[in-house]
């Protein structure tokens, strides 16, 4: 028995399972934060998206990401399905069998795609979402991944993103933001005075279950990104920074929600926890425990204001995915440049601004953030736009009002429960216009 490989494989597969399990977490959080009439649709999206991502990553994504060390994109061994695999050409060099590496990378790719799902919820066509996810995981995500984790130009520059604040979360976040902009807000979300109409999530217990599963999954996401147990102290340290940032996010968002918004809202504290987790993802192996608490706490504050800001900008993101993943993905990556401390684990080569490393690392992080934004946001916009112009992107207003579950799936999430539709009252409370009139404007969004 190759003992070291056995241990590393066990660890990588366990971590892959945990990250896979985050699909359940995202599905539950997103469905819980949406309205019941769209629950089946959201669940279906989160469910099919992993299938589609797996296919995309298997067909081409892996090759683009790890196929040789061209600065911008993988060019070797692109197609792995069916053929013989020459492991030596790939740039991912963990001490585990090929398919273990593949699966581990696959679940990360799937996560990026899942992030989009929540932001575009409650009005996107099922098919359009599937197509976008396929393109994202077949092309966009792998290219960025290549830059940073596959030996591309950002890796060469020394850009550091340990477990994917940028690679996974902000890629998903930029793609989501582009989708939100092309789609326009849900019908009735903002009245003509720009006032936001609250559309509370229909099932907070389900959202909370999802949160705990995500939190658990992050213990695979971050510590697992070592892809090895050869240095147990590193893994343990990363586990600890991950958890500490999460609690930082919970505590600060709870306090802020309590003092600034009046009450400690559950939805806000859930987002606070996720924000902390996203923010520590880049730096989990580079910062010390106290820093992770600080990073998490700031993230928990950022997310609250980000949610309010996106609503003010009338960028309607039903579950707060952009606030959590985009804003804190960017913030977390910057934190590497601020809080990194060389030597805090064996994986941490450089120090950030606050620990005597000067502006060098911070500059590189900033450059990476901008490079990724400059690629992912416009290319996502383009894909969304092409989808809109061809098969269409948004369900009809009738369908949106009746719910996507009926329209897209012919199903009802809870056919036996009597429900009021609080959304209805929000829809038309701003005066005398009829639905027909607004239907036009809904079609005109963007």
């Amino acid at each position, binding site marked *: 028995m190759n003992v070291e490989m056995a241990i590393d494989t066990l660890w990588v597969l366990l971590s892959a399972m945990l990250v896979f399990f985050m699909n359940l977490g995202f599905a539950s959080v997103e469905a819980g934060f949406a309205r019941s009439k769209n629950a089946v649709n959201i669940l279906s999206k989160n469910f099919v998206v992993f299938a589609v991502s797996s296919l995309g990553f298997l067909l081409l994504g892996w090759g683009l990401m790890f196929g040789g060390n061209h600065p911008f994109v993988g060019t070797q061994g692109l197609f792995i399905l069916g053929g013989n695999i020459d492991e030596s050409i790939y740039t991912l060099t963990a001490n585990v069998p090929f398919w273990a590496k593949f699966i581990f990378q696959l679940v990360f790719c799937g996560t990026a795609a899942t992030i989009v799902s929540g932001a575009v919820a409650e009005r996107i066509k099922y098919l359009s979402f599937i197509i976008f996810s396929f393109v994202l995981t077949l092309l966009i995500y792998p290219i960025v991944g290549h830059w940073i984790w596959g030996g591309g130009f950002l890796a060469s520059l020394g850009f550091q993103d340990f477990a994917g604040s940028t690679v996974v979360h902000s890629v998903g976040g930029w793609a989501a933001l582009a989708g939100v902009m092309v789609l326009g807000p849900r019908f009735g979300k903002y009245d003509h005075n720009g006032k*936001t109409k*609250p559309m509370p*999530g229909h099932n907070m217990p389900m959202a909370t279950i999802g949160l705990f599963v995500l939190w658990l999954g992050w213990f695979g996401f971050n510590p697992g990104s070592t892809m090895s147990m050869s240095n147990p102290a590193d893994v343990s340290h990363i586990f600890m920074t991950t958890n500490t940032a999460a609690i930082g996010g919970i505590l600060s968002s709870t306090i802020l*929600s309590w003092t600034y918004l009046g009450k400690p809202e559950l939805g806000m504290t859930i987002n606070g926890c996720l924000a902390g987790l996203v923010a520590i993802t880049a730096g989990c192996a580079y910062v010390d425990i106290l820093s992770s608490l600080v990073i998490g706490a700031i993230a928990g504050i950022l997310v609250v204001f980000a949610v309010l800001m996106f609503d003010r900008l009338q960028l309607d993101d039903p579950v707060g995915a952009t606030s959590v993943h985009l804003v804190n993905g960017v913030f977390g990556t910057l934190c590497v440049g601020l809080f990194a401390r060389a030597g805090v684990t064996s994986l941490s080569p450089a120090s950030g601004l606050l620990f005597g490393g000067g502006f060098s690392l911070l500059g590189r992080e900033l450059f990476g953030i901008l490079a990724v934004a400059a690629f992912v946001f416009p290319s996502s916009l383009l894909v969304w736009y092409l989808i809109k112009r061809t098969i269409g992107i948004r369900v009809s207003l009738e369908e949106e009002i009746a719910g996507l579950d009926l329209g897209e799936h012919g199903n009802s999430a809870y056919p036996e429960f009597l429900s009021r539709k609080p959304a209805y009252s929000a829809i038309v409370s701003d005066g005398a216009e009829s639905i027909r009139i607004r239907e036009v404007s809904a079609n005109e969004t963007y």
Partner: protein
Amino acid sequence: MKHIKAVIKPEKLEDVKVALKNVGCYGVMVKEIEGHGQQGGIVQQWRGEKFELDLLPKISIDVVVKDDEVDKIVQAIISNAKTGSDKGEGKIFVYNVESVIRIRTGEEGESAV
């Protein structure tokens, strides 16, 4: 025969139900409704946005009784539906019923009540 509809606070349902039994009124129909009268709404919040549910949960309890029982029953309801707060105690409405039929037997009129 008369139809008495009482709109009351949910927490008084049990008291009113017992009181109705005590004055010999066995058949009742209970519905959850939402209403607003003079009482204010409930404030909630979602992602920092506050909103008011101006419709409050109420119970509508309906009984159909013989003409000469109306007063007794209205009194029983009034004295059991009060909570002591100054708003939202509810109202009673009385309607005329033209006929009542018991499905099981087909019998009609007061004996079917």
